[in-house]
């Protein structure tokens, strides 16, 4: 028998290889700076925009009001029963990701994903404080002396400030921003606000500062899903191996004539935020940030070769080019059935939501006939039904709503607890009102089984009406 104590099972854990992305400039880097600026601005500024909705409602343009179960987005106010708008937007977001991934690979990852944007921001800070790649590698390997401690503490402090600002901005979407800001600093804010700020600060700090590409590689489901979304015709970042290989550094040597365009300078590897080599081909860890394109284009300019050794290119085009053919135009790559179907679906849901938004009213009600008992026979033999109405006033103003019966029926309509047929529904509220409907003795509705009726609720001031069908239940004899 073998000695058991000597066995060393292989570890399942891969330690993180530190990545030190080098500074790069070029057209994609510029584009990414712009997108970073715009997305961060949207994130931080949105909660501070104001929008007047009348005295009873909050004036924050974008607000998720959990306590009152309302969602405000500029001129749109969503009530819980209209959650299909949110569902629709989520479906659109999902389809949008499919669409963009099928056409352009992981553009979401490379340009707009919060993980990418904040990591970019954190790397920017890191570079500003500790220097570019080489300086950072040196600092990483250096002993923990005063300078290293100072630089690290400074960097972490700035990161932490950004992280706090990030977590802090998030909670402003859920409460009146100016009030909450004051409350947060005067320790008056609810515990959940502090907890949210704390959790988001921690995740921003850790994900952006320390985990970075690990989030993309190990935590995010998107890289796994993308495989199903992409195909050979998807435009994505790739290395033109037919042009670059065989790679080689020694341009002056005799065999230089046989070498490809790649001078093996590692520029593309050094700038890569996930620390991979795009020359190994399409891979899970590539977030298609296109920085290696910028880096390589720069090198190609310097050695006087055409740009595009690393480029946005489809797998199919690479194959065609290898065989000596010419690649298909970008327009043709985008105008293909799969993309058109995605776009059509996406557009159809969008149009549906817009239609629903246009047809939506700020006055709605529902009728629940009281079925215990179904009806009451009064002393003079007339038959009465009761209905529970839920009147929803989706505006910022109190409204007097008049309830009536559609068509000319000889039934009497009364409101519980009211002398008139009209009731005041406070701004932005749902009011329950019981309505009594009485059919005279021996009338058609009183003796029939069920009679279909329609109730109408109207607001004279705004000339809005809403109608709902229901049933009057007679005695059936």
């Amino acid at each position, binding site marked *: 028998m*073998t000695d058991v104590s000597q*066995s060393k*099972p292989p570890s*399942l854990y891969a330690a993180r290889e530190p990545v030190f992305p080098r500074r790069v400039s070029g057209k994609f880097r510029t584009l990414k700076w712009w997108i970073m600026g715009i997305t961060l601005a949207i994130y931080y500024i949105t909660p501070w925009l104001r929008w007047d909705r009348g005295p009873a409602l909050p004036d924050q343009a974008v607000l998720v009001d959990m306590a009152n179960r309302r969602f405000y987005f500029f001129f749109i106010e969503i009530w819980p029963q209209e959650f299909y708008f949110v569902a629709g937007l989520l479906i659109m977001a999902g389809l949008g990701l499919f669409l963009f991934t099928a056409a352009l690979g992981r553009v979401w990852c490379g340009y707009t994903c919060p993980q990418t944007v904040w990591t970019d921001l954190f790397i920017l800070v890191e570079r500003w404080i500790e220097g570019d790649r080489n300086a950072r590698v040196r600092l990483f390997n250096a002993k923990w002396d005063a300078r290293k401690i100072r630089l690290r503490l400074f960097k972490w402090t700035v990161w932490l400030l950004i992280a706090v600002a990030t977590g802090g901005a998030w909670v402003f979407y859920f409460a009146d921003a100016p009030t909450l800001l004051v409350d947060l600093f005067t320790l008056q804010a609810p515990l959940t606000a502090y907890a949210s700020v704390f959790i988001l600060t921690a995740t921003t700090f850790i994900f952006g500062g320390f985990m970075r590409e690990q989030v993309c590689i190990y935590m995010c489901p998107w890289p796994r899903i993308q495989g199903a979304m992409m195909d050979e015709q998807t435009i994505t970042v790739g290395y033109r191996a037919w042009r670059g290989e065989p790679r080689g550094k020694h341009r002056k040597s005799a065999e230089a004539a046989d070498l490809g365009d790649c001078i093996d300078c590692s520029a593309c590897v050094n700038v890569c935020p996930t620390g991979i080599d795009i020359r190994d081909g399409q891979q899970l860890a590539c977030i298609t940030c296109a920085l290696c394109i910028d880096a390589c284009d720069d090198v190609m300019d310097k050695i006087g070769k055409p740009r595009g050794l690393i480029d946005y290119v489809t797998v199919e085009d690479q194959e065609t080019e290898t065989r000596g053919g010419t690649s298909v135009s970008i327009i043709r790559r985008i105008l293909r059935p799969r993309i058109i179907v995605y776009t059509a679906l996406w557009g159809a849901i969008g149009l549906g939501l817009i239609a629903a938004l246009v047809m939506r009213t700020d006055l709605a009600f529902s009728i629940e006939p009281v079925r215990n008992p179904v009806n*009451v026979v*009064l002393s*003079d033999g007339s038959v009465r039904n009761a209905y529970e109405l839920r009147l929803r006033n989706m505006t910022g103003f109190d409204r007097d709503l008049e309830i009536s019966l559609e068509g000319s029926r000889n039934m009497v309509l009364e409101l519980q*607890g009211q002398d008139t047929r009209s009731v005041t529904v406070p701004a932005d509220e749902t009011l329950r009102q019981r309505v009594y409907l009485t059919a005279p003795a021996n009338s058609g509705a009183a003796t029939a089984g069920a009679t279909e009726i329609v109730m109408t609720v109207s607001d004279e001031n705004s000339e809005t009406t809403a109608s709902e069908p229901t049933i009057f239940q007679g005695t059936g004899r």
Partner: protein
Amino acid sequence: MADNKREIDTATNTETTGHEWDGIRELDTPMPRWWLITFYITIVWAIIYTIFMPAWPMINSATPGILGYSSREEVAQELAAANEVNAPLDERLANMEIASVVEDPELLRFATAGGGAIFRNYCSQCHGAGAAGAVGGYPNLLDDDWLWGGTLTDIQQTLTHGIRYEEDPDTRYSQMPAFGDILEEEEINSLVQYVLSLSNQEHDAEAATAGTELFMDNCSVCHGEDGRGMQDQGAPNLTDSIWLYGGDPESIANTIHDSRFGIMPAFGGRLSDEDIRKAAIYVHTLGGGQ
């Protein structure tokens, strides 16, 4: 069957459990360290939890835990807090003329909501969750016919002192004689026909005429000469279409023969004055209040 030889698997350099099936041996891969640590932490956490929170079952109750938490206590506190919030409204309700509650919409809504809860707790057993009662002695509270009056004050009185509830000295009391001992079968039949005619139901006109005089002699004292009843006596109106014990000839004959004696318990003393008012207001809003 497995044969228990623990040895090292050469391909993975991992110890095997010694279990072997058809030449396939089971690796004894150790638990990941983080998993084990998490597992131990949960055990430590569980012990700490049982020290601080109620946990170990004893004979009568559980160990209280040093934080002294109790969910009953929490409910009691929440109830007390809710009562405190409602206290001003309760006080207003207790000190006002009950009939004027309709002029105060806020109080009316408060009382109706509270009254509904009280009704479902204490009244629905007989009167039904929907307050529709049941034929055979449980009055329907939704209609506009009232044995003892349908104003807010009447309903409040009925709720407080009950009906024919002998433990309450102020209860309202009346009793219909059982005419089976007094009248002949034939006479009772004539009376039935007369009563049917009062509410315009199908009847034998000849017998009804014969019943007229019997009615005047025996029944009109309480039910009135016109048969419209008398709310002071709890004597029902016989001319309308509402019958507490059924309006068909057989039920009416039974009522006359054996009489009826419905009892409602008094709630004064069991419920607070405000709660009785709330229940009265709730019943009044059900559609029949006068």
